[in-house]
């Protein structure tokens, strides 16, 4: 640290003529991690955690600086990443659900070629939908969903084109006709839920113990379903909440047949983004394979560091398996795998159900 700044100046001057060979050692370098959400957000906590671990496992132990650039559902930060990052491994970005959705929905502000980015780490996060017991909910999950279908439900969240999209699609596929109040932060909607102004909500399953379980214990809320978790190509129950049925299980029980056809394909594509690829770290387009490999290896080793083994890290990452390198590339592709036809279906659904016309 003492000579850090001299090094960084010299290092940076050298990099004027640097070739990729030199980039394999990051000693004395400062790496910028762009996080396209606010300071204090879930993505920032996740990104900072990994930054601390990667500082220890990247060759040369560089310093990683966090730069929060929020706005436009992550579009502003990633646009800036696209504009500024060179393929030298000195700038990385945290991307999240919003980055994918704005890309898939072809938001006209998007100026980044998402498929060209090189992911080296993926953190999945399960989702849990829950509702207030004063709707008359009991212990039978199927009966509870039927109750939600027949009762006037009010949902508070951030909006249909945000990371709420998979949850709202799931509600509709089940036949729940919730009234939506949008533009709320998670904290605001939780407060509204506690007051009874909203009676339907979902949360990160990782926050089950701290946020949702107390409400369930007090008898205020009941878990309805989780999104499940993909294991060896199959969607199984969430490892965090194995006693709660998945959306697909409930869909089959309510409708008498499993979800299939284009509805399934769209739902699965959104699931890939929202659950399996919930938070990712990426390198810019055209980053040479050697650098991507260095990062993948560092992310692999990071798992064993005391940072990620700590109790605090477990609170953030929960029980979900982290994927690095090729495995995270796989998840990344899964998130982008929506066909033109499926995109068109989704756009029509947004228009029909939520009256949203997307600009092209």
């Amino acid at each position: 640290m003492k000579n850090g700044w001299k090094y960084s100046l010299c290092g940076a001057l050298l990099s004027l003529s640097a070739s990729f060979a030199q980039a394999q050692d990051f000693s004395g370098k400062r790496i910028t991690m762009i996080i396209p959400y606010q300071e204090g957000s879930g993505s920032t906590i996740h990104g900072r955690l990994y930054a601390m671990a990667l500082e220890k496992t990247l060759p040369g132990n560089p310093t990683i600086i966090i730069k929060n650039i929020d706005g436009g559902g992550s579009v502003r930060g990633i646009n800036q990443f696209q504009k500024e990052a060179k393929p030298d491994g000195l700038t990385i970005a945290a991307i999240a659900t919003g980055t994918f959705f704005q890309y898939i929905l072809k938001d006209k502000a998007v100026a980044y070629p998402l498929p060209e980015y090189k992911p080296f780490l993926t953190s999945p996060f399960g989702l849990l939908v829950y509702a207030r017991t004063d709707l008359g909910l009991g212990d039978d999950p199927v009966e509870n969903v039927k109750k939600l279908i027949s009762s006037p439900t009010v949902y508070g969240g951030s909006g249909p084109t945000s990371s709420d999209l998979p949850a709202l699609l799931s509600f509709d596929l089940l036949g729940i006709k919730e009234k939506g109040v949008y533009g709320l932060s998670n904290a605001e909607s939780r407060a509204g839920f506690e007051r009874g102004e909203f009676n339907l909500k979902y949360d990160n399953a990782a926050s089950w113990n701290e946020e949702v379980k107390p409400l369930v214990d007090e008898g205020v809320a009941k878990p309805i379903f989780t999104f499940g978790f993909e294991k060896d190509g199959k969607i199984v129950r969430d490892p965090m909440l194995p006693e709660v049925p998945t959306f697909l299980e409930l869909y089959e029980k309510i409708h008498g047949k499993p979800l299939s056809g284009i509805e399934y394909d769209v739902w699965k594509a959104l699931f890939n983004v929202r659950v399996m690829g919930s938070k990712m770290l990426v390198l810019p387009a055209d980053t040479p394979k050697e650098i991507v490999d260095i990062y993948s290896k560092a992310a692999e080793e990071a798992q064993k560091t005391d940072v990620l083994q700590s109790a605090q890290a477990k609170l953030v990452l929960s029980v979900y398996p982290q994927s690095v390198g090729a495995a995270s590339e796989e998840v990344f592709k899964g998130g982008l795998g929506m066909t033109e036809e499926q995109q068109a279906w989704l756009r029509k659904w947004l228009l029909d159900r939520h009256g949203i016309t997307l600009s092209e």
Partner: protein
Amino acid sequence: MDFSVLQNAGPALVHLLTGPHLLYLLVGAGLGMIVGILPGIGGIAGLAMVLPFIFGMQPEPALAVMVGLFAVTATADTFSSVLIGVPGGAGTAATVLDGFPMTKRGEAARALSAAFAASFIGGIVGAFILTFAFVAARPILLAVGFGEQLMFIVLALTLVGMLTGQNAVKGLASCSLGLLLGTIGSSQATAEYRFTLDTIYLSDGIPLVIVALGAFALPEVVDVMRQQGGSIAQKALVGEGWITGIRDVIKNFWLVIRCSLLGSLIGVLPGLGGGVVGWISYAHTVQSSKDRSEFGKGDVRGVIGPESANNAKDSADLIPTLFFGIPSSGSMAVFMGGLVVIGITPGRDMVTNHVDLIYLIIWSLAISNVLGTAISMILARPIASLTAIRFVLIAPFIIVMIFMSAYQAKIDWGDILALLVVGVVGIYMKRFGWSRAALLIGLVLSQRLESSLYRTVQIYGMEIFERPIAIGVLVLAMLSIGYAMRSKVRTSGGNMEPTHISRINIWPQVAFTIALLLFAIAVGVDATQYKFLASIFPLTVAAITAILLLITTIRMLRGSKVPGLFLDADAEMAAEDSTSKSTLYIAGLLAALPALAYIVGFVIAAPIYVFFFLRKIAGASILFSLLLALGLLAFILMANYVFQVPFAPGYLREYITMPEPFG
């Protein structure tokens, strides 16, 4: 009520005073002082900076560092608001209204010590409230739903009535314009982009801090610069002012307590937000004072009220954060991130399992307030003496600081562009006597008003009028309007008495009013293309704004004698002192910095700008100018390296690769 939790208070204090905790608290407070006084770095950056270091620490020392840091930042913020008229944050803009005029009068030390003493009491009251919040916080959270929040926002809005300035129509138009500015960006209900001019920068609206800097800091700098050769303090410094400041606080003790309670209350209530605290308490101070003639011209009560409330609010902010895991401000969100880093989840878990930590936080708050006040008081006199220096010598640094602070808002060139645009409007608003306080209050409340209106209609509809708390607050709001209408003296923070000179050439004033009118119409027309939920609010506000502006235009054209209608501060000043420089010339001087930065980047542009400014405008020697420019460069590099402050990149970077942070 169960007060048994209070038994944890004693052991927590012992814990804090023994062992290394006090040391950690001192480290935190020291850091907080530095980031608070240094321009462009606030509590958020300071907290974010220490996060990596507290990882893996025991919760107790980690909390001591964090609490020490953010508790004194708010106190240290006051320096720039009072001394140079640059609001330390959007929340402290109210302090500028009377603090800066006091500085101009040579009473900087008095203003500062009054501010510090007031904020000390505010901090202690806040910590005290926090102690008992266990019992009341949950019922409050459950009782204040979106409907009640709406009524509280309406109540806050009615306080504008006291801050319109002499001409109520112009003042209300300013507030309306603020509301209208707040509708820019994506609509909460439908996520449609409104009046963003197809830029992604505006998609989340205009940052509050940009408007605070543009409406207050730039016009003040321009004003002081006109009197070339002068210092900020236009009269000799009043010695021993700091004792007078403390006496002022003692004399207005009940005002301090009232404003502290007000600040705590706003911190506890969900939905109002911190930005408005300073203004609400300022309006309350004006409302509850008998002699109002000096407000806006340097009344010490105008400093005491907002400062005590602001610091009390900072402590109260912890209540929703700690007890419900609902961060009420940016720095609280970072603080929450810090709690997660040390393995504590705020919310129910904290209240049931970590009561000892909560008391540790409360005591840390109280002690850091003592520390922060003591350090600030010691620094007050030497720093206040800077205001006696020839202004042209410090002006370039203030200009650098304003642009540097602005760029921290979104780390985007749009910040600087927006600051210039708002700055020009702010300069003319000041010149022609439009209430900038009302503008800022409108902007602070706009999004909250619209969203709580929408939520209330969706959730309650007309049933809102069946909820007793909502009705109670609404009645209060009506009383507040009635009071403002009856009141004879209303301030706006302007300090100019118009004479016949302001009426000689009315055309610039008419033109400015029409320009504002065109803006309101443009936003209104733009709004018509959106869905009902996204268009109803901006359309309504645009219509009200347009009507108010139309009334003003017609009155102006008819040469009406309504008080406060005409004011041309430039003409008044030119009549008094013919050597004063034109606004255009000074605006050009200001714009030279961003223009240069656009080409070579801010890091290189700022020292060059300072060098030439000192050399050409201030007539300093080459050596002196060079030394100060290099000093600035060293500061910038330090801020970039240690505090990771980003600076605006230049156009040249597209062609020449330069190391960070240059280019």
